């Protein structure tokens, strides 16, 4: 294993508090909730495992961690449980990131059998490919067809929160100016933009 201090990004002289803070920050970052439905979910899970191990190792080395710090989250992955599903094979394919095969099965389903689940899985394939618009439409259809299904709802909610992406506190829906009140900044930004345009097409025009 790598140096556990390195994994958590702290120096070996860091205090216990600093280590805990670093661990918490990383655990929040890699939390499975952030990677719902993502094609990278397994990698995030792996990272989570690494920092958990590193944190445990440090605690052991420091002869502390006698079960006092056990409130950390364990990666509870919500894998598809519905084995009775009509599209069981599709789910397995998606789980293994074999999107072409999954879509092949879905596309060969006759029109009459295209249930809410079909739209959900179709959306999941699109999502894995990065086709966000198609995924959004399919998840919406699935939810409309079966409004009580938690799984479809969760996928749609996940999408919606991404679509209302709010990092850096910008783009508040109630603030039409997007928080860019400072005209001086606007001028600077505009000049940067103009500068860049010059760079881009300098030779062209």
């Amino acid at each position, binding site marked *: 294993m790598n140096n556990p201090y390195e994994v958590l990004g702290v120096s070996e002289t860091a205090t216990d508090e600093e280590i805990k803070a670093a661990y918490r920050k990383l655990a929040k*970052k*890699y939390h499975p909730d*952030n*990677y719902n439905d*993502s*094609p*990278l979910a397994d*990698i*995030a899970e*792996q*990272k989570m495992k690494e920092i958990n191990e590193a944190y445990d190792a440090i605690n052991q080395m420091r002869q502390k961690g006698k079960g006092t710090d056990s409130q950390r989250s364990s990666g509870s992955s919500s894998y598809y449980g519905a084995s009775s599903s009509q599209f069981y094979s599709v789910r397995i394919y998606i789980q293994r990131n074999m999107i072409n095969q999954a879509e092949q099965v879905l596309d060969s389903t006759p029109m009459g059998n295209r249930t809410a689940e079909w739209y959900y899985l179709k959306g999941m394939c*699109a999502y894995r490919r*990065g*086709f*966000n*618009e*198609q995924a*959004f439409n399919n998840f919406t259809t699935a939810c409309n067809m079966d409004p009580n299904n938690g799984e479809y709802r969760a996928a749609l909610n996940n*999408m919606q929160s*991404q*679509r*209302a*992406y709010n*990092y*850096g506190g*910008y*783009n508040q829906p109630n603030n*039409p*100016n*997007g928080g*860019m009140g400072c005209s001086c*900044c606007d001028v*600077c*930004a505009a000049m*940067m*933009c103009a500068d*860049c*345009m010059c*760079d*881009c097409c*300098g*030779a*062209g*025009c």
Partner: protein
Amino acid sequence: MFGYLQIQKSELLVREYEAYKSVYCGLCRQMGRDYSHLARLILSYDCTFYAMLLMALSKSCSGFESGRCAFNPLKKCKYALCTGDAYSKASAFSVISAYYKLEDDLNDEGFFKKLMIRAVLPFFSHWRKKAAKKYPETDDYLRDMTEKQTNAEMLNDCSLDQAAHPTAQMLSSLFSSEVSDEAQKRVLSEFGYQLGRWIYLLDAADDYEKDKKRGRFNPYVSLSKKEDINRLESSLNQCLARAYDAYGLTDFKDFRGIFDNLLLLGLPTVQNKITDRFNGGNNE
């Protein structure tokens, strides 16, 4: 690419800003060395980003040195030093992508613009050949993108997803080819895909009015109603959200503060500036 990958300068630490600038200057110098002084003109923020990413991935930034700016000899410059070929690769990407962009413009610009493009195209063609010899893969990705883009635009009902796919795919291949670890490959592939998608969708929105006026292809059917704008913003937001999630799983350590700034502040600012135009145009 189109110069959308900008940092938000006001929120960077001074040392980070200096590092950023020194990569920019280093790349500019390389463009002059590899191609010509004229080629320096096409240097963009996008390529600076690419160079920075390459250096971070290969851990090849070895320090900084002072020198003189080639454009303005009175000005002192700092240059980021690089032990690998990040600079020359990014320069190659610059000239190759500029060439294909011009070639594409030949098809849909007006008469005078066409004349001008024809005048400079031989230079670009020469640089492209030189760059492609050194980095055939980069040339393959970009040529492939251009071809697929043309095909996608010929589809009867080209969806946003289909229209954005070639650009997204190009960045995805470009980024993921830089690492050998399987998991990191997938992370960078998703990162590149969503970032490329964002660039394409934003550029299409940026050009929307111009394209409609001239009757050129634009993936947006309409951007006049409130719900169209909401949809546009949502799809852009989602690209950034997914790109940022993927970025969170990358392993590299260098320039982290700059990338954070770019993804969390710079790109949203660039995006808002463009979408604000459609939101009633009161921010003109």
